[in-house]
């Protein structure tokens, strides 16, 4: 039995927004794999909940006419991995969320919850950063959209304002078309794990597969929030593919990351891993794109 106050169960997004406004103290619960644990730990003991679990309109993946992929915020990790659109266009996202916890967590955990709790270790977040994802929020004033990197404010804090809830995650055509990627989750075991650190790399090669037209490198647990390795991306964008490129990228990302010491891993270990993961993920992403190094 959880130490919960009142549970509100909206039937529609509009009702959810209204309840958010009426009960600003209440916490949104989506799949519960995060909120219920915080209640049990005491961090959210006695909290009132707005359960959006039943808002099936927020589940599922579809593509808009302009080629934007739209992932309903309540879509579970398991459904994302299995979704044909995800597999075809942004398969690496399906692969990344297939590394969250274990199968039952992937059945209940939602991509909206994973991004709204603001943690840097979320497997979906670093990959969404590497897809230039857009977060869609619905509030009393209507819909607000912003790039995912603006959504994350600080550790555990996202730009979710009073009355709002996250309703979808959007990946525009220009962000996915022509890109292939690879995600490496670094954990201390091979399942039931939170990333010690993680790296997601997307690349776009020229038609002749000789030039790196674009690359996006994102990290989890390399700072208080997920982050992109911008200076590395700027340095290597447009370069010819050479055998030494992965190693150079691995070294370069060290300037872009700021992991910290914690009991889970030292800063030095995390730095070393960021470098190794960037090198390996880049190598795999190029290989998936048909390039040779």
């Amino acid at each position: 039995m959880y130490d919960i106050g009142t549970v509100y169960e909206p039937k529609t997004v509009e009702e959810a927004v209204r309840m958010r406004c009426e009960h600003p103290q209440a916490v949104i619960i989506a799949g519960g794999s995060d909120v219920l644990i915080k209640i049990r730990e005491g961090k959210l003991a006695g909290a009132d909940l707005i359960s959006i679990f039943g808002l099936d309109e927020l589940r599922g993946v579809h593509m808009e006419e302009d080629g934007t992929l739209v992932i309903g915020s309540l879509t579970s990790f398991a459904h994302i991995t299995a979704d044909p659109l995800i597999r075809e266009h942004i398969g690496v996202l399906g692969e990344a969320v297939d590394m969250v916890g274990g199968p039952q967590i992937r059945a209940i955990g939602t991509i909206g919850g994973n991004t709204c709790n603001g943690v840097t270790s979320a497997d979906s977040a670093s990959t969404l950063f590497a897809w230039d994802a857009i977060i869609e929020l619905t509030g009393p004033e209507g819909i607000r959209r912003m790039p995912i990197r603006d959504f994350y404010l600080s550790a555990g804090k996202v730009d979710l304002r009073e009355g709002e809830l996250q309703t979808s995650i959007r990946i525009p055509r220009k962000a996915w078309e022509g890109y292939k990627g690879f995600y490496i989750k670094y954990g201390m075991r091979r399942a039931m794990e939170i990333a010690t650190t993680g790296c997601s790399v997307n690349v776009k090669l020229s038609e002749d597969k000789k030039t790196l037209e674009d690359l996006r490198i994102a990290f989890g647990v390399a700072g208080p929030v997920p982050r992109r390795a911008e200076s590395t991306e700027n340095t290597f964008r447009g370069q010819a593919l050479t055998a030494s490129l992965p190693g150079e990228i691995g070294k370069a990302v060290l300037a872009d990351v700021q992991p910290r010491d914690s009991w889970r891993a030292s800063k030095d270990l995390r730095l070393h891993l960021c470098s190794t993961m960037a090198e390996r993920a880049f190598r795999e992403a190029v290989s998936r794109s048909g390039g040779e190094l």
Partner: protein
Amino acid sequence: MSQYKLVTCRINGKERSAMVDVRASLADMLRNEYSLTSVKKGCEVGECGACAVIIDGECYNSCIYLAIWADGKEIETVEGLVGPDGELSDLQQAFVEETAIQCGFCTPGFLMEAECFLRRGEIYTDEELRKLLSGHLCRCTGYDNILRAVKKTMLQRNQ
């Protein structure tokens, strides 16, 4: 004041209703309201998998699933795998025959997980099976015999 809600769902094929405290987990409801004690509590935070049940064809940890969410759902527990005359299912029988059960506390969770994905009728490699079962912790068996039991059932069902 406690808040209650009428939760109506199908449990192991039978329609059931109960007024449930909104603070209850599905594991609480199944154990306390319906005495389905195969649903085991090992961690209550979704880390061990002992409380896993099938809900509308997907396997969930019932400890981190609110009982009120079960309204209108189809729920299956290990008690529901047993036949009308108490006979074990092929999967349960395989667990027995392959010595996949020692203390037995994790067993119900493994059974529900395996039952859930075996119904898809696909053939999986050992690596895939290990991943499909990786949300359940067992400290007695080293997992080997559980893998054998699930694999044996999979191959029998897909003959």
